[in-house]
């Protein structure tokens, strides 16, 4: 029995002392080693959020305070008018309330905030719906119908193929074709990109969720879906992108002066057999499409002082009634966006204070 008033027990033999001290050391070392494995220190091959964000910085240069991808953009505000058509598929309040306020952001898919608007044939549109019950729905959509690849590992390989060669400062022209050749899942994207042109306006584009999600109704039924927004504005036939490198934001601001811009939110229901875990594959054939309501954009603000600046458009911030699919890109986007968000929010003071102007 232990007695606090009595002196410690007879001394341990030297051998016993060494064994016991060593045992304590082993226990502590095993615990520390397990932790170092879990946090990636002892597992350097693991694809981590910072690996992806570092690759984006390598390819695009470091632009403190800006998003590490889709860096050039413009904030918009407005609201969503529900049509009630999605209500039987999802209990999310956004589909039953008449109006839900939205903050959005149009952007160019590149990590360079000074990229010319004509440099890529892609545009993106991110949205935050602020539901009356305090929940939120965030979605980051793109003008392409499918993603080039289906996994974060392949996406990382694609970023590496686009990395500048240290010798020339430019990507090796053979790398990207070699990447596409070794990744046949890129065929759908490549077929689309052949026909794609840089559009003259954010307002005339269709934007797609690309990743699949589940709508869940009040009785717990799950329906796999992809969604997208289809513009009510159309380009005049033959309209082409104007000269200059910063026409998109000006065009948007001008259009909003004359009145709100509208998109229809379409929700495509998956057919049995449609891939719900592979964003590189299109859903072919006839599909039931719900008209879930109308997005109405009323105003825009420069991104440097607009409401969208400090929003991380994490596609896994979802309200009750919408759930993530098993698409591995969703978790990767969420994880990498969190890493990018911490970097750029640490650099807010380095952002130019005036609204963004084109730099030489």
């Amino acid at each position, binding site marked *: 029995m232990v007695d*606090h008033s009595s002196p410690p027990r007879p001394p341990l033999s030297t051998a016993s002392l060494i064994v016991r001290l060593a045992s304590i050391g082993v226990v502590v070392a095993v615990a520390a080693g397990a932790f170092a494995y879990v946090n990636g220190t002892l597992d350097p091959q693991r694809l981590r959020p910072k690996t992806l964000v570092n690759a984006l910085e390598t390819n695009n240069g470091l632009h403190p305070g800006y998003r590490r991808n889709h860096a050039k953009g413009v904030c918009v505000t407005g609201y969503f008018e529900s049509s009630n058509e999605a209500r039987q598929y999802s209990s999310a309040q956004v589909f039953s309330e008449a109006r839900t306020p939205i903050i959005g952001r149009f952007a160019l898919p590149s990590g360079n905030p000074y990229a010319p608007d004509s440099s890529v044939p892609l545009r993106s549109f991110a949205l935050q719906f602020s539901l009356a019950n305090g*929940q939120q729905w965030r979605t980051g959509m793109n003008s392409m119908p499918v993603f080039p690849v289906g996994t974060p590992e392949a996406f990382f390989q694609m970023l590496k193929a686009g990395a500048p060669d240290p010798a020339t400062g430019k990507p090796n022209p053979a790398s990207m074709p070699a990447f596409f050749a070794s990744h046949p899942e890129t065929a759908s994207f490549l077929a689309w990109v052949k026909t794609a042109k840089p559009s003259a306006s954010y307002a005339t584009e269709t934007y797609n969720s690309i990743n699949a999600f589940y709508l869940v109704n009040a009785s717990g039924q799950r329906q796999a879906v992809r969604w997208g927004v289809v513009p009510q504005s159309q380009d005049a036939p033959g309209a082409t992108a104007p000269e200059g490198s910063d026409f998109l934001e000006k065009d948007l601001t001008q259009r909003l002066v004359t009145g709100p811009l509208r998109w229809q939110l379409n929700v495509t229901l998956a057919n049995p057999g449609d891939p719900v875990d592979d964003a590189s594959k299109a859903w072919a054939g006839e599909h039931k499409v719900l008209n879930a309501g109308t997005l109405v954009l009323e105003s825009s603000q420069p991104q440097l002082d607009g409401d969208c600046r400090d929003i991380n458009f994490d596609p896994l911030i979802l309200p009750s009634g919408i759930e993530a699919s098993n698409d591995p890109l969703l978790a*990767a986007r969420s994880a990498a966006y969190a890493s990018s968000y911490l970097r750029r929010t640490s650099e807010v003071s380095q952002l130019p204070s005036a609204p963004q102007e084109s730099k030489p």
Partner: protein
Amino acid sequence: MNAQPRYFAPLARRLHWLMALMVIAMLFIGAGMVASVSERHEWLIHLHKPLGIAILALVIVRLVVRFSTRQPPLPADLPLWQVLAAKASHWVLYGLMLVLPLLGWAMISAAGDPVMLSSSLQLPALVPANAQLFAVLRKAHGLLAYLLFLTVLLHLAAALFHGLIRRDGVLQSMTGTKD
């Protein structure tokens, strides 16, 4: 005056071991989720938030128990520096168990994200949305979590030192076992 207790109160012991499991699980979950782009990232976050709030609630109960029960004294022959280290490390452990969940809650609030413990259970924002505040809180959350892990390792080593080397009853005061 009654004789000094040899053991921590049964409720204090139960809380200690339950929270030891939770805190260690939480540290590994946190370190793993921020180092993964796989689906693990997502389901670990869904564990991390409710577990953090559970730890916050339990540490408050535990502080009440700590102040309302009698603690077994440290051995009279324990060197002063070890006494001071023991007392300081315990308050560091209590402090971090209290502060880390609050920092996590506050940093999600500062990011402007809804603080969701499940798909529909939501907590109010602890602070208003502010990007620069988010960056400070997020970094503090990570750094203090590493400090907590190091303090837990030290606590573990010290407990084993008492149990295996000094054999002075300190480890048994928390295990509740008679040796």
